[in-house]
């Protein structure tokens, strides 16, 4: 299941420093603000910064209570986005549950090679969100959902490249 996080902390930084719960939720609120910010000329497409934050925290900085934190981040996102309560919480809880199985394999890859997995997870989130909308209102998702996923995933290599050192693959010299 990969590395286990420290109990009582939200994200573990290099050197064993941890991010406190209030600071984690300030980060979630900042991500929510980015999520609701309309993109000029494409107001239907939004960057799902909360999903990026939760995925980054779980892949690279796993702390204690990952599922509960993912669930709470989802609830905050639901409130900020005026979505039905539980819509984003359901998806984020599920990806927080599955990430430990793929964490080590993903971290071995370069940020660009991680993109297919990241896009798959974001698509899964979008699918769940659209499924809830379809149940509520009988609306099927438009292509905007796909563009939103692609735009969001474009930020993944930037985040990982900025905060993480690239994995070094050493070839045996003959």
């Amino acid at each position, binding site marked *: 299941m990969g590395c286990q996080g420290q109990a009582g902390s939200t994200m573990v930084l290099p050197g064993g420093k941890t991010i406190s719960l209030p600071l984690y939720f300030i980060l979630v609120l900042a991500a929510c603000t980015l999520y*609701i910010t309309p993109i000029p000329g494409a107001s239907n497409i939004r960057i799902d910064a909360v999903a990026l934050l939760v995925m980054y925290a779980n892949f690279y900085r796993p702390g204690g209570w990952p599922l509960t934190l993912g669930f709470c981040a989802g609830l905050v996102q639901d409130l900020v986005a005026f979505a039905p309560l539980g819509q984003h*919480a359901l998806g984020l809880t599920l990806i927080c549950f599955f990430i430990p199985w793929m964490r080590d394999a993903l971290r071995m890859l370069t940020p660009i090679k991680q993109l297919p997995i990241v896009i798959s997870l974001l698509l899964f989130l979008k699918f769940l969100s659209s499924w809830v*909308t379809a149940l509520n209102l009988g609306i099927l998702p438009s292509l905007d959902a796909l563009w939103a996923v692609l735009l969001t995933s474009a930020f993944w290599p930037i985040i990982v490249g900025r905060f993480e050192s690239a994995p070094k693959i050493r070839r045996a010299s003959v």
Partner: protein
Amino acid sequence: MPSDRHIFREGPTPLHRAVFLIGLAVTLLAINYFTDWLDPLRAKALDLVAPLYHVTNIPERLSDWSQENFASREEVLAENQTLRDENLILQARVSTMTSVVAENTRLRQLLNVAELLEARVLIAELVGTPPDSETHRLILDKGQNQEIFVGQPVLDAQGLVGQVVSVGAEYSEVLLISDRGHAVPVQNLRNGVRAIAEGTGDFQRVRLRDIPITMDLAVGDEIVTSGLGDRFPKGYPVGRVSSVRAVEGSPFLEVEIKPDSDLQTTRHMLLLFSGWESRVFGLSRSGR
């Protein structure tokens, strides 16, 4: 005294936690779908969250501010001239309308029909739009403190925009007429034919539902609210018929109208008060 400390703490496994939290999320979704118990929470959240939408508007406001303050003298003069011209045209129209309204009132009195109520309006400004691309909603900067209520019609300068679906103390949430969960009773201004206009999820299209093939509808007809259902007052413009199509084998026409109001870009809206609000006051949720 035996120690309670354990070297290896035992708690619920990740699977148990996941099942519990997923169950909780599904329960919340079910409560949201089948009941309106969470509506007060949403109304409270509106006031807490709306300031974040103000923050997201800062770049746009800065752009507007710079455009207003750094516009050249020529541009201001040109805009001033345009506004003068428009004002002249509107004054001419109003003078014509005054006689029409007076004549209409006389005719209504003759027919013993209840007089149309003078509507009281409140101007509200757009704060933001929720990020879900599948639903068409807006957040306005007026709420319960300004006597805004659920079900209140919202207009812009051109026509009907939608209705209020959730009210906080200082903010309110509006469902647009283009939302797929929205429907409004309408009638054709030309011949009085009544129908239901429902949203399509496209800001530029609203569909008329269940229109028989024999119905007299033509492209360009003006569609207004019919006043049926006591939700919207009668006679407010909704849009113009943009296409009428007969579908082979179907007894109904496919009729689409283009909304008069600019649903995507309008920033200032009118919240309509009149004598009928007491009848819709207290409705918990609309658009379902």
